[in-house]
């Protein structure tokens, strides 16, 4: 026992080689692994999206079989949601939370290691089903990322079981990550840092962690029901045995709607850190930001059936879910106005993180407005399952969540590596990404309103031009991300040394540590006044 304690006190000791990563209990190493994992999956999921866009470049069948097209849309969605956005946010939380609250590390470092290393296993299973499909051994999951029963139960391919266990592992990983975040924030804050003095990124992650803890078990439950329906004779979703396939959608979206806020609340936190720095003003309306985040989290539990307006709900139900959904625009609007008020009369400069943050505010708000259009019941009957929906959620997830992750990487990369990134390349990356994302997703609004259904490999002739424009945007967007990869590698390897403050007048405990941040963040807690 004594020997172990002695070793524990030897702070600069770390294993070398592969062991450093496999057995890591360090929040920075684990954070880096999460971020690289998400980055890798971003290229995998992106490659699938490019095959989809290549197929949709022209009407008619060109490149892939319709059956394989369904597998592409399914895996693209699953990988981007569970393999990119969520791990990237957990990676940012790992890197930043201890530094921002003045802690040496996360509260539960060993569990932290486990929750990361479950992810490669989970995605190994999921991607194995794709590999087998390509090698002609059965089909990968082909029912869309929402895996509605009975497509995924009665008609699911054999690989559905790979998918089910993969989702179980992802769920365990997310729940453990979330428990770690809550324990860290509750127990490890520096003396004097009350809850209402925490940086907004910490607040948004605190609330997100509770959302994860509340809904990931429901997801685990629904895939377990699928598993027992498929193999153990239960009839949760099978009408023949007294079950109800519509109930699947209720349980799924009870998880699914809070899930979309899990993917956007940390983004709100990031933008609330970046905008004040480059406006050289404190954040406008700090406490209203906290309350708005909490209200959005609460409302996310009572709006789920707005995904199901066309399932034959009675009018009373439709009205309830329509109005509760519209209500979410209020706290979200508070946030957008707060960011704009923070910029108002600020001494603005436009480094790459700020450019991404401003693009986020503008483009996410557009995605929010199309969301408001979709929540109007009579209109939704026209928009449902069209490309308009695809445009809506890509605006909130790509130009929203993904842009905020890129902004965060640019903002904190000098702190992580000790080197400034190449600003010229950063600007190239931003402008190419921002313009191509709009070329890619904006035309989808038009084809959607004109009636082009989603998840279909072929389409009517009149949609051809807009689809070609979208496909061109997709390829520019995809290859622009190679600039980002090159820039990050270049920054890790060297460059102009960053100061501890990194950005002129940057506030926050993370900017009081030297750059690069030491292996253990705050070994003695700072005093917060």
């Amino acid at each position, binding site marked *: 026992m004594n020997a172990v304690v002695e070793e524990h006190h030897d702070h600069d000791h770390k294993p070398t080689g592969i062991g450093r990563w496999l057995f890591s209990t360090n929040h920075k190493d684990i954070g880096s692994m999460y971020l690289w994992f998400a980055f890798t999956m971003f290229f995998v999921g992106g490659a699938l999206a490019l095959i989809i866009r290549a197929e949709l470049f022209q009407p008619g069948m060109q490149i892939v079989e319709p059956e394989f097209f369904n597998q592409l849309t399914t895996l693209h969605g699953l990988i981007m949601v569970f393999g990119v956005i969520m791990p990237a946010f957990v990676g940012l939380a790992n890197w930043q939370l201890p530094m921002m609250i003045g802690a040496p590390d996360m*509260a539960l470092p060993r569990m932290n290691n486990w929750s990361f290393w479950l992810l490669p296993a989970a995605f190994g299973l999921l991607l194995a089903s794709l590999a087998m499909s390509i090698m002609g051994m059965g089909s990968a999951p082909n029912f869309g990322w929402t895996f509605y029963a009975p497509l995924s139960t009665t008609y699911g391919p054999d690989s559905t079981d790979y998918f089910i266990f993969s989702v179980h592992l992802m769920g365990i990983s997310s729940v453990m990550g979330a*428990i770690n975040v809550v324990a860290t924030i509750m127990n490890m804050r520096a003396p004097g840092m009350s809850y209402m003095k925490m940086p907004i990124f910490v607040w948004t992650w605190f609330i997100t962690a509770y959302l994860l*803890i509340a809904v990931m078990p429901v997801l685990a*439950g*629904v895939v377990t029901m699928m598993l027992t329906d498929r193999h153990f004779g239960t009839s949760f979703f099978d009408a023949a*045995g007294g079950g109800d396939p519509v109930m699947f959608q209720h*349980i799924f979206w*009870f998880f699914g709607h809070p899930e979309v806020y899990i993917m956007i609340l940390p983004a709100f936190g990031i933008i609330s850190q970046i905008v004040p720095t480059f406006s050289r003003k404190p954040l406008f309306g700090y406490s209203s930001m906290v309350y708005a985040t909490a209200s959005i989290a609460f409302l996310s539990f009572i709006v789920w059936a707005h995904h199901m307006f066309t399932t034959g709900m*009675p009018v009373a139900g439709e009205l309830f879910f329509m109005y509760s959904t519209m209500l979410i625009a209020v706290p979200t609007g508070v946030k957008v106005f707060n960011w704009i008020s923070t910029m108002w009369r600020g001494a603005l400069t436009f480094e790459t993180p700020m450019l991404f943050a401003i693009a986020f505010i503008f483009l996410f708000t557009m995605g929010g407005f199309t969301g408001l259009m979709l929540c109007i019941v009579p209109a939704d009957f026209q928009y449902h399952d069209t490309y308009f929906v695809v445009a809506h959620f890509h605006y909130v997830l790509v130009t929203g969540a993904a842009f905020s992750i890129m902004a965060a990487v640019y903002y904190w990369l000098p702190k992580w590596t000790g080197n400034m990134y190449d600003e010229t390349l950063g600007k190239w990356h931003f402008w190419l990404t921002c313009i191509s994302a709009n070329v890619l997703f904006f035309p989808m609004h038009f084809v959607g309103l004109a009636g082009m259904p989603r998840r279909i490999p072929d389409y009517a002739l009149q949609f051809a031009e807009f689809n070609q424009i979208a496909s061109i945007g997709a390829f520019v967007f995809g290859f622009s991300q190679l600039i980002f990869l090159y820039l990050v590698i270049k920054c890790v390897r060297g460059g102009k040394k960053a100061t501890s403050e990194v950005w002129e007048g940057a506030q926050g405990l993370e900017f009081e540590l030297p750059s690069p941040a030491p292996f253990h963040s705050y070994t003695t807690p700072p005093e917060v006044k």
Partner: protein
Amino acid sequence: MTDHNQQTNINKPVVGKLLLLVAMMFGFGYALVPLYDVFCEVTGLNGKTGDQVNLTSAPVVDGSRLVRVTFLASLNESMPWEFKPQQSFIEVYPGKPTTINYIAKNKSKESIIGQAVPSVAPGLAAAYFQKTECFCFTQQELKPGEEKLMPVTFIVDSELPQHMNEVILSYTFFTSTENNQVSQPEVALSLNQDHKL
């Protein structure tokens, strides 16, 4: 040493409570299943009709208006039966018990046990649609080539809102057991109770 232990001690209650929350939410996912059924039954949303109704007193008949009840029949894709109502609709006085027949015929060469699942449209009318007798309350077995009349006795409640003047009753027949299995009354009974058909 003491630092390390203190840290572990303050984390334990937090982790314990959060794990409990995780377990509760996993249970809640399952609790949604009966809650959903109860909710649908109480509100009549989703067109789910209630259990068998036992009439304790003669229902009030509203002779002032007629409600048209339309009958639909469909088969699950793997069901090799023929299934249709004897008449496509009937006009009834609310409150008056009415019996109509469906006809089912097994076209396959094997004995098949089927389970009919009812649904009422519009969904809000389900609460006013009571069945005193129905072939859907139990499983039905048909021998190869056998044809059978399937009666259903229903009452449209006289409380049915005035603006509803048409109710659609539809049944879907599913194969509920492996084809060669013999019918077991207990199974049929427990299925009926468990799932509130």
